[in-house]
């Protein structure tokens, strides 16, 4: 990582980036697994400086009590049962809460078997479970949805929403932003160890808008929107013209004007905020 400066301002913070962009290193530094060569980390009210290695370590260890972790490289015990690892990670055993996590992540079928026999997906579910079993204030996840099937990915989103409502803050490193659409409220994109873009998702997506226009001549409408400068990008999808416009250019009047110019009729228009996946794709392009 080089010259990375971030302020996790959301409840569910997403760190996106391609392979080798530095996401895992960032998570490992916050978790206290590795030390940075240079930098400052602020956890709550504590400011930790890399020049004071002892202070850095103590600060992170003090904060660790309220944290839950799931790192990219697992080191799960192969001879313990899944339920034993959940007990291990639980600071105070809560059978109801553990049962809810097990049900939500669909773990009940294998929790009483040795972890060594788990598939990667099962191990991933167990890792997610152990990271939240003690109801931490802050959860650090590195690639939480890797190896998971579609229903479990949805369950993970549900789990994030439930815990976020209770006040848990998430820092999630991932390269699959689609898994966190509608859940994350802050994001940053890293590339080759540097931050390309960061901020609240609503602010980032407000920089432009996407108009989906139903028309009898979508191709003509799209071409005219590009020519006139109304749209930055335009494409035809599902028979509709999808226009990406600059911020503020979302009024129906402007669209009707270019439609009239090409003799097209607009039957409906919808404005969609840009998705995390779109923001990510744009940032790494």
């Amino acid at each position: 990582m080089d010259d990375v400066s971030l302020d996790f301002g959301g409840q569910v913070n997403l760190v996106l980036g391609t392979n080798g962009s530095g996401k895992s290193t960032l998570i490992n530094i916050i978790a206290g697994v590795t030390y940075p060569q240079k930098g400052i980390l602020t956890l709550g009210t504590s400011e930790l400086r890399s020049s004071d290695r002892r202070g850095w370590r103590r600060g992170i260890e003090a904060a660790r009590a309220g944290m839950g972790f799931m790192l990219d490289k697992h080191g799960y015990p192969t001879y313990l049962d899944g339920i034993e690892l959940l007990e291990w990670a639980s600071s105070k055993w809560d059978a109801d809460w553990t049962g809810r996590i097990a049900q939500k992540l669909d773990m009940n079928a294998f929790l009483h078997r040795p972890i060594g026999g788990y598939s990667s997906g099962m191990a991933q579910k167990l890792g997610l479970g152990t990271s939240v079993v003690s109801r931490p204030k802050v959860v650090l996840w590195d690639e939480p949805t890797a190896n998971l099937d579609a229903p479990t990915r949805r369950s993970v989103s549900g789990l994030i929403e439930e815990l976020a409502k209770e006040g848990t803050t998430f820092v999630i490193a991932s390269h699959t932003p689609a898994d966190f659409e509608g859940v994350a409220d802050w994001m940053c994109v890293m590339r080759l160890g540097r931050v390309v873009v960061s901020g609240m998702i609503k602010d980032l997506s407000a920089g432009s808008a996407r108009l989906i226009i139903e028309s009898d001549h979508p191709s003509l409408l799209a071409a005219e929107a590009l020519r006139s400068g109304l749209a930055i990008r335009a494409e035809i999808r599902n028979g509709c013209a999808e226009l990406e416009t600059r911020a503020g250019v979302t009024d129906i009047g402007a669209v009707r004007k270019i439609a009239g110019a090409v003799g097209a009729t607009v039957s409906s228009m919808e404005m969609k905020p840009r998705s995390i996946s779109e923001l990510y794709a744009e940032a790494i392009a």
Partner: protein
Amino acid sequence: MGDFLKVFRWTYKNDFVEPFPELVLLLGVVSVSSSYSLGFDATNEFAKLTWNLTLLTLIFAAIGGVMSYSLALERGQVTEQLLSLRVSRARFVALKWASVFVILAVFALLFDFVAFFLYLGYFPNLGAYTIWGEAPGFAFLIMVGEQLVFLAFLNSLVMAVSFGLRRTTISLLAFLAFTLFSAGYFPLGSAAIPDFLRLGYGDYLFVNGLSYYAYLLFASSPQALVSAPTTTDYLVLAYRAVGAVVLFIISVGLFVRADLD
């Protein structure tokens, strides 16, 4: 106590796994049933047994130690334990050290009992001991006590080597090279290397001397005064006890500075 039990459970169930039990069983049976001793001109059966148990203890500590420290580090299991337990690095090292120590001690004591019963017929045959035949409990208790200090030294040594080198095979070889050399391959009576540094022999010297002294004290013998432990006896103990503490502190220092990714 709760954290200790958690680490102990993980260590016992997940670190001391195959091939540890199989090797321990094999080497234990071979060692205890063999009359071979490590080149030391044994004065009696007790000395031979001490040698054999020393060798066995070194192998216990070597295999169990590298599996719990080095191998667990390589597999990321140490990081997992540290993070999911949410304790400081120094506290984790202490908990792990204590867990490995308890397991090694239980194994070693188990073999002590088996060896004394099967190999020497110790308890049924008090006449096997010319010196301690009247007070076998002293010899045994002092031997066990000394063995625990010896185990603490070995545990700290294997931990320091594992955290320092961070490669299982290299750590195992380094530990065995040092301990086996110390146990049998440097000459006795050398001015350059004191005898008490020789693992096993130094332990034997200490147990032998202190047992005799304890027996004489117990029997209120006037010879007790002249048989009191010498500086060398205390050096034997200091080397192991202080060594255990120093190596433990080194291990903590290495671990708290280490990148664990």
